């Protein structure tokens, strides 16, 4: 199970996408997706482990963008393609901290 607040949020976001694509997977490819309600419930359970202030930021960003968390590669926010300040480098990160892009406001997830 992921431990950091950011990883929990990433999982939370990826479950949203999973739910969105469920119907398509069923209709196009015949996958069984009978567990939609169960998955929604699991997502709610997951949310209980996420700090309220992060969830609020996430929900606020979701009203503006399709995805609230953007991947970062080569120090570029892939949500808006702005270069991030070098002070954002991953070595300053800790488990319970979340950085946001100063240009678009999205929460940032480093993937390099």
């Amino acid at each position, binding site marked *: 199970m992921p431990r950091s607040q950011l990883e929990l949020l990433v999982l939370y976001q*990826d*479950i949203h996408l*999973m739910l969105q694509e469920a119907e398509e997977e069923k209709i*196009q490819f*015949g996958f069984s997706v009978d567990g939609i309600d169960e*998955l929604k419930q699991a997502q709610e359970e997951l949310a209980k482990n996420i700090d309220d202030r992060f969830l609020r930021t996430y929900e606020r960003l979701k009203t503006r963008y399709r995805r609230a968390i953007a*991947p970062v590669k080569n120090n570029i926010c892939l949500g808006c393609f702005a270069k991030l300040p070098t002070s954002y480098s991953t070595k300053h990160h800790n488990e319970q901290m979340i950085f946001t892009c100063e240009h678009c406001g999205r929460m940032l*997830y480093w*993937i390099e």
Partner: protein
Amino acid sequence: MMTSINIVDFLKEEFFISRLEENSKETVLKELLQPLVHAGVINSESLVLETLIKRETLGSTGIGKGIAIPHCRTLAISNLYIVVGISTKGIDYQAIDRKHVHLFFLILAPPNEEESRYLPVLGKIVEIVRNSKIRRSLIKAKDYTSMINIIKKE
């Protein structure tokens, strides 16, 4: 416009496991992830594993007749990857027909995949394993080259 997908392009030797050793759903998912972990293309193994497990909550990707196609999109990976694994003894994967699974296609892709190949790739794999002759040969494939030859013939 239809994107034409050549599935062989995604089937790499380093992402082929000819003999899966694990024997439960969760442990085999972890085993299938290992080639990607070793290649350094996964950001967080525990996160990807948990995402795959959540996908199984939605419905078993054990689609029957000895085949499973575990798949998900995850932010913890930056390209589309397929891992193929074969289990001679078969794994109790809670497949929809309750039969043991012998052949696994693990598919992972980022949510924002630019070329939108994820669903077409998923569809192509489903199409390949629907063919009972190909399915049976694939389950018996002894190595990477045999697997590729079977799929190329399709």
